[in-house]
């Protein structure tokens, strides 16, 4: 029996009390709360759109893990590179890609960030150095190492953030990538989103050694775990790892312990987890956790929350409308970009 997480507070649709006065404090914690909520509402809408057959194929949601994308992306500069996985909506939104670009992609429309060709698992954005999701578990790791090799050889001080799950730790490619990165002191940070399950296989049934940070350290790189359900802890860990990698001392590994409140994907009956465990992790939901902290500090009011929810709802509705109205790629372009287009004759 899965239930989606209740919104932080039962948002009543009261009218904004003081129009025009913008008294919201611009603290980063406030921004992070808004960013996390934005990811959650977006993905809740994706569930609806999938049920209504507007989104097809596979859909992997990160509801419950929002602290990680928001925390990690905040530690990166625009010039750093990001390599993600198929559970990438949060990473993409936190990296700055628009809801319209994501929904257009999942609707298979030309307005999508990959022109409708990639779908939920293959979001790309060259301008933001977002080198895409990858549907092959572990497939992105060697590529991230290569990107870092290029940064080092070109003498930039950019860093490559490589995000992946605990499942990828069992792939040969993790072993090869970690060893290469450490051997050549490459500026890559391995962010392992350990949500305790590789699809239907729990951590203890997929790894002989479940202390993933310990395993990563054996490759000769700095590695430590962090609380993936606390966005402030994630930001802190991410900043330290990125600075270390940027210093040139070599790669880092951060095991972000987290939990997904919904199934592996829309296609998964989620019978391998018992409800009590899910409920127990719900109590550590990163969004209400930060909300209470800001409310206690007196920097967050009911109005603020209402405004955040209203803004996000408008943004989502606009993106859905945009995606529905957007054209599909003409079939005639099917073979474009199989290989590069020949240089135009003058």
């Amino acid at each position, binding site marked *: 029996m899965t239930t989606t997480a209740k919104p932080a507070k039962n948002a009543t649709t009261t009218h904004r009390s003081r129009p025009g006065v913008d008294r919201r404090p611009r603290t980063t914690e406030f921004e992070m709360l808004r960013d996390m909520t934005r990811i959650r509402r977006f993905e809740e809408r994706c569930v609806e759109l999938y049920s209504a057959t507007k989104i097809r194929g596979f859909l992997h949601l990160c509801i419950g893990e929002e602290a990680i994308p928001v925390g990690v992306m905040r530690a990166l500069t625009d010039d750093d590179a990001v390599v993600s996985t198929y559970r990438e909506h949060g990473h993409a939104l936190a990296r700055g890609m628009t809801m319209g670009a994501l929904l257009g992609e999942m609707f298979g429309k030309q307005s999508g960030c990959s022109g409708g060709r990639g779908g939920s698992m293959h979001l790309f954005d060259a301008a933001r150095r977002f*080198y895409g999701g990858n549907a092959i578990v572990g497939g992105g790791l*060697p590529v991230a190492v290569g*990107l870092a090799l290029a940064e080092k050889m070109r003498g930039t001080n950019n860093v490559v953030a490589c995000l992946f799950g605990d499942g990828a730790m069992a792939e040969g490619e993790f072993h*090869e990538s970690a060893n*290469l990165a450490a051997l050549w002191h490459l500026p890559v940070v391995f962010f392992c989103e350990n949500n305790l399950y590789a699809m239907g296989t729990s951590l203890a049934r997929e790894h002989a050694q479940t202390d993933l940070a310990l395993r990563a350290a054996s490759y000769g790189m700095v590695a430590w775990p962090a609380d993936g359900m606390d966005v402030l802890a994630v930001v802190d860990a991410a900043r330290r790892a990125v600075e270390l990698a940027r210093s040139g001392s070599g790669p880092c590994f951060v095991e972000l312990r987290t939990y997904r409140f919904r199934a592996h994907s829309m296609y998964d009956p989620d019978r391998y987890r018992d409800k009590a465990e899910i409920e127990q992790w719900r109590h550590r939901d990163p969004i209400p956790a930060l909300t209470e902290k800001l409310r206690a500090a007196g920097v967050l009011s009911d109005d603020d929350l209402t405004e955040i929810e209203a803004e996000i709802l408008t943004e989502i509705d606009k993106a859905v409308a945009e995606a529905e109205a957007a054209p599909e790629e003409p079939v005639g372009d099917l073979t474009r970009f199989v290989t590069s287009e020949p240089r135009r004759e003058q």
Partner: protein
Amino acid sequence: MTAQATAQVELTYREAMREAMREAMTRDERVFLMGEDVGRYGGCFAVSMGLLEEFGPERVRDTPLSESGFVGAGIGAALGGMRPIVEIMTVNFSLLALDQILNNAATLLHMSNGQFNVPLVIRMTTGAGRQLAAQHSHSLEGWYAHIPGLRILAPATIADARGMLWPALEDPDPVLIFEHGTLYNVSGPPPDPSISVDITSAAVRRAGRDVTIVTYGGTLSKALDAADELSAGGVEAEVIDLRVLRPLDDATLLESVTRTHRVVIVDEGWRSGSLSAEISARLVEHAFYDLDAPIERVCSAEVPMPYALHLEQAALPQQADVVAAVMRTVDSRA
């Protein structure tokens, strides 16, 4: 270490490829070589001998035995603005990197709707004939020629070994270069530097009017020898060296076949689902009314390559097989 004579009378295939890599790394600092034992050991087939001393460990990088790892890293470095040459020791080990080559290198540009190019060159040795037995004797370039998004080259001559690398590095898309293991020691006159080498078209290595022999890479010499033997018997065979296995140069093939009306395809891959099967199908599709005899294919026997010399030779396409096949097309009484 072969003596590096300055006024070179002859150049080996291996030296031609080494010269090509040296020239590329000198001309463009984005170019670097990465692979198992390419540096200190000088390359498993001594192709990169001396490059480490000349360009240093940053640009001639020995890698651990992690094909998926360093091929994926090559892809990432290409995405990151470099122009890597990744050497996979032999096509047999490339199977460990097939996922990276297919799902990342070949696919990224199309899947990202044109945002990400992968200007990567991967070199690997291929083919049998040196009694290395089943696991070290595969000829799988036909598999890779199946994948949209890749350009597949098979340099069979010294001129191509010397000339193909630079245009391959300039290609914004991934290019795989297959070097047949038996060619490294072949020597010949140094190629004329003024003649530019393309990576788009096939070459007619021998003109002829009675039959078209289509082949590539390691079997070109056998095809030419067969043509000479046939010529003595009054049959003039045209020998086409494909040079590029994807995209196939259909125009050159069709132009020849519509003149000779008989075709023999020589391919060291296994017959079923091989490159020769694809070429045969295209010719039937586009030159059906010009065929005066069934298309013949001379391929490896469909067996794991045996170690024993006499068995390996029996399994591989030979000159006599090519001659017999040609005679079947010229005179059906043969």
